């Protein structure tokens, strides 16, 4: 058996909701069944066979060949298996996912990992705005799992995040970690304007000191925090993309805040 390969026939005529192509939803389906699945494409419905050339027969591994920013909700709600995209993808990547792994070779659109509860998303390019963030009106964003971005992330990464780990190898946009309820965000590059705005709990770990910190963050001094050693060990155990962010343990300058929202969160800056 070989993994299912979905090769894009051309640029889709509209935005395509790819959520029905999650591995667990395809389990037990033949290639013919999969080709017959209807996907919402703009204001009409198109069959999978019309959009993609379908090869392979193991839906536990789904590979999208030829990415497009019009491919939305890839891996949304998936519970198991793996999805790879050999290119870019659109918004809502891994939206509400419950398990499994997604790997994107290119860029991802907005709201990647929003509402996810478990599993792992790896974005080898850049991530759009609202990475792991809550949808407007939602109380919580990402609620578990891990997102690894090898490039940079847009604005408001982790907005209202509740649990989980976001690793950004490049830069993060403005309001990174805004209104975070809990969880950990690591930015190996530079964080943009007002990191941790409205941070309630949770940790922003920054490799570089931000150019400007909100006045509602206060310096707690330089510390060695044991949980970072624990996190480092876990990332070593996970291996793969996580190792690119190591070592983690060491001394950090701790800024507690956002004092405007209770001050129980923290921004840690490596020293």
């Amino acid at each position, binding site marked *: 058996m070989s993994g299912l390969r979905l090769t894009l026939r051309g640029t889709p005529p509209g935005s395509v909701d790819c959520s029905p192509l999650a591995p667990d939803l395809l389990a037990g389906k033949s290639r013919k069944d999969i080709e017959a699945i209807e996907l919402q494409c703009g204001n009409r419905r198109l069959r999978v066979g019309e959009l993609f050339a379908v090869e392979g027969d193991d839906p536990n591994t789904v590979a999208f060949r030829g990415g497009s920013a019009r491919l939305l909700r890839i891996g949304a709600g998936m519970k198991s298996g793996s999805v790879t995209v050999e290119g870019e993808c659109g918004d809502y990547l891994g939206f509400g996912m419950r398990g499994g792994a997604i790997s994107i070779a290119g860029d991802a659109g907005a709201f990647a990992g929003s509402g996810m509860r478990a599993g792992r998303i790896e974005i080898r390019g850049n991530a759009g705005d609202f990475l792991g963030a809550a949808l407007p009106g939602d109380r919580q964003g990402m609620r578990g799992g891990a997102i690894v971005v090898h490039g940079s992330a847009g604005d408001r990464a982790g907005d209202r995040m509740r649990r989980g780990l976001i690793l950004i190898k490049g830069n993060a946009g403005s309001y990174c970690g805004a209104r975070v309820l809990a969880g950990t965000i690591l930015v190996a590059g530079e964080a943009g304007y007002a990191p941790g705005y409205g941070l309630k709990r949770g940790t922003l770990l920054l490799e570089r000191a931000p150019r400007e910190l909100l006045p509602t963050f206060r310096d707690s001094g330089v510390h060695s*925090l*044991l*949980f970072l050693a624990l996190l480092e060990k876990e990332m070593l155990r996970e291996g793969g993309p996580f190792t690119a962010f190591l070592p983690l343990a060491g001394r950090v300058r701790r800024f507690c805040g956002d004092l405007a929202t209770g001050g129980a969160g*923290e921004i840690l800056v490596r020293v």
Partner: protein
Amino acid sequence: MIVNGVTIDDTFAEAFGMRGTRILITALNLKWAHHAARAVTGFATSVIGCGCEAGIERELSAEETPDGRPGVSVLLFAVSGKELAKQVERRVGQCVLTSPSSAVFSGLEGEPINLGRNLRFFGDGYQMSKMIGGRRYWRVPVMDGEFLCEETTGMVRAVGGGNFLVLASGQIEALAACEAAIAAMSKVPGAIAPFPGGVVRSGSKVGSRYKALTASTNDAFCPTLRGAVKTELTPEVGAVLEIVIDGLTDADVRNAMRAGIGAVCEVGAAGGVLRVSAGNYGGKLGQFHYPLREIMR
């Protein structure tokens, strides 16, 4: 059965089902990990009066601990899950949380009982939770930085009260043999000897002539009562010491007993050891029986 001049009695040790857990205590260095571990296992010789039985299982290298610091593995046993949970929380709260540079982690998979779940409230609202690798940890701010503790530890069905008695020509000889046994048993994982130095001199029998007491001195093995009671001692026995063993599994207790009795026999008759016996209640009270001769075969 005679091994190196030591008679192994044709009897068995009788042990009971208990609940057990393992916690890992780490610190800046081994010295401070031991300080915390010794405190947490203090006054934990017998469930009769201490609430639990506890001991240091072994030292842990930095590579073996979750936080990459040296540490000590501790086993705790109690008669019920509820009592074990109470003892773990109270002891860790008073003895590990208070110990400089310490951190505490679960060392066992099993039914979860609280480790840091309630201790976190010492943080007075400044405590922070971290989910790492599917486990929840609490960071509690304290005066030397942060106390890091895992939320729960695992509890398993365990065995308590495995034992053997060392009958020797005198106190010095009995103690030397027991020290050799404890040294050998310390290498066996999953088992501890909870009494001071691993050795107990006040072995007990069930009941007492005093109504308030449920246990009293094991007169049949007291050398000074020879002649006054129905004794188990021959005239040449000058002292008896007991080693009590708690283990996470039946096999752990068996292995520890084998190692301990083996070490006692190595000391042998030349070292003043005369007999090895064991304590039991006729086999009717405890679920676990450890026939000495079968173990040493």
